[in-house]
């Protein structure tokens, strides 16, 4: 028998090139607003550190460092790693510990510091998340995996690149209104469509950023929630999925099989359907990933995701607002922080506290976070419900 679990508070560091901070200070910046709301260290039973890639910093034993820095050295802690889904994997692990009764209140901290190395080195380190025997020797970088999906998608559905650029324009439109975003500026469709190539068919504006940052949430068991907030966000559905390691082994490159499985499981657990979802945070590590996410999540039929883009249904006042915080593209993608940041954004949208009214979605009852790792090997999908 499990207990219901809610997200009761959240905090978010400024994303960007944070040469002024290490992962310690970033985590403090994310936890401080939670502390200021009254969830002090003594109220927290244990913590999970979402920290995907120690290769960027050289810092081992990250969860010990961070727990100590935040005054939590006497509380149990652990680190979770599953590439870009580390944030929601951490939340999933913490949910299990609270739902089972092991702990009542847990802090989930996501952090990554990626700009301690050059872009070429960062690209190298992320390429090493491909199969080291069969993919790495051919220089298949992280964007290259998604470019392989994009080439196939563009072929099968006759998709012009401009549709992908329209997604980038939307991301930057909202990132420009998010004070936490790494690259908060608007881009024109022409600029996005004609940008310098990175991994053709993907160009600079199809790719997410190499970002430093942190985000934090606190979750609590149902019988403790009232101590912390009158506005809890219940974890209503969780779905996790996986896909083949090597991209050539996928039955389809126009969908992420693990994401479809995860979505099905999350909707089932929540007792909801795609049409019930009021907003989504999707894993737009590349523009093609956002387009595919619309279809994997059931917001559009296969091959029809472009209609959501072309009709601007993905804007904050549209049918299914997606990534109106700027997404990984403009807000940034500090690997371990990303899934926690998605959760934070949904909490704020539900509470009506998106920092700028021009990106505040009306009346969010159900929000969905779609977090994908590497090129789809890991997927976590969370469905959250407003609890007031």
């Amino acid at each position, binding site marked *: 028998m499990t207990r219901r679990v809610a997200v009761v508070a959240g905090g978010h560091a400024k994303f960007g090139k944070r040469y002024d901070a290490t992962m310690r200070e970033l985590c403090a910046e994310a936890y401080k607003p939670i502390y200021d709301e009254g969830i002090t260290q003594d109220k927290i039973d244990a913590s999970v550190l979402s920290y995907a890639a120690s290769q960027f910093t050289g810092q081992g034993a990250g969860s010990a460092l961070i727990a100590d820095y935040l005054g939590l050295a006497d509380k149990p802690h652990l680190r979770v790693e599953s590439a870009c889904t580390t944030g929601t994997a951490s939340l999933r692990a913490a949910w299990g510990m609270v739902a089972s009764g092991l702990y009542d209140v847990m802090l989930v901290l996501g952090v990554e510091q990626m700009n301690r190395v*050059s*872009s*070429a*080195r960062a*690209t*190298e380190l*992320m*390429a090493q998340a491909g199969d*080291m*025997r*069969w*993919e*790495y*020797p*051919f*220089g*298949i*970088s992280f*964007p*290259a995996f998604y*470019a*392989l*999906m994009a*080439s*196939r998608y563009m*072929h099968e559905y006759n998709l012009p690149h401009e549709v992908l650029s329209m997604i980038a324009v939307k991301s930057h439109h909202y990132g420009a209104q998010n004070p936490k975003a790494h690259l908060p500026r608007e881009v024109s469709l022409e600029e996005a469509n004609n940008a*310098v*190539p*990175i*991994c*053709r*068919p*993907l160009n600079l504006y199809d790719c997410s950023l190499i970002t430093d940052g942190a985000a934090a949430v606190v979750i609590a068991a149902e019988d403790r929630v009232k101590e912390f907030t009158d506005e809890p966000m219940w974890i209503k559905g969780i779905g996790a999925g996986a896909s083949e390691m*090597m*991209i*050539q*082994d996928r039955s389809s*490159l126009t969908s992420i099989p693990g994401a479809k499985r995860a979505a099905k499981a999350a909707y089932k657990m929540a007792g909801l359907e795609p049409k019930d979802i009021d907003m989504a945070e999707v894993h737009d590590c590349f523009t093609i990933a956002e387009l595919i996410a619309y279809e994997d999540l059931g917001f559009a039929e296969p091959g029809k995701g472009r209609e959501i883009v072309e009709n601007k249904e993905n804007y904050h006042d549209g049918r299914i607002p997606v990534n109106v915080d700027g997404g990984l593209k403009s807000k940034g993608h500090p690997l371990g922080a990303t899934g926690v940041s998605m959760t934070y954004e949904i909490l704020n949208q539900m509470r009506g506290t998106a920092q700028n009214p021009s990106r505040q979605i009306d009346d969010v009852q159900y929000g969905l976070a779609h977090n994908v790792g590497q090129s789809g090997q890991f997927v976590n999908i969370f469905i959250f419900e407003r609890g007031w």
Partner: protein
Amino acid sequence: MSEKELYLGYATDKVVTPFFRKFLEALEQEKLMKSVCPNCGTEFLPPRQHCQKCLSETELKEFTEREAKLYSYVIVDFPPESLASRAPYVVAIGEFPSGLRLTAHITNLTSMPEVGMPLKLAFDRVDEKKITYKWLV
């Protein structure tokens, strides 16, 4: 007795197990090896030492198909550090008539690749320690 170093592709993962070494030595003879499970008959390309279905030790057998079709591609303009000197390069997934697929560079393109175009498997010595299979159009 030390055997000469031998690696696959352009960036090198220097972990070469006895199974992988056999694959590389065959590749030097311009033979591409698949693996076949003696227990359940499943075939793998590229090969894997253990069958994905029944975990039996597989056997290396020569893979003889040479003609494939381009399933998908990427032109890598901004490479990982280890392949900086080769960029831009084209990575292609080719699909053989049997349905098996292989990922390698296309090295002789003179125009933009197109999904569905015919590819031909070939072999190449990259340098004295590295060998590879590749696609030609």
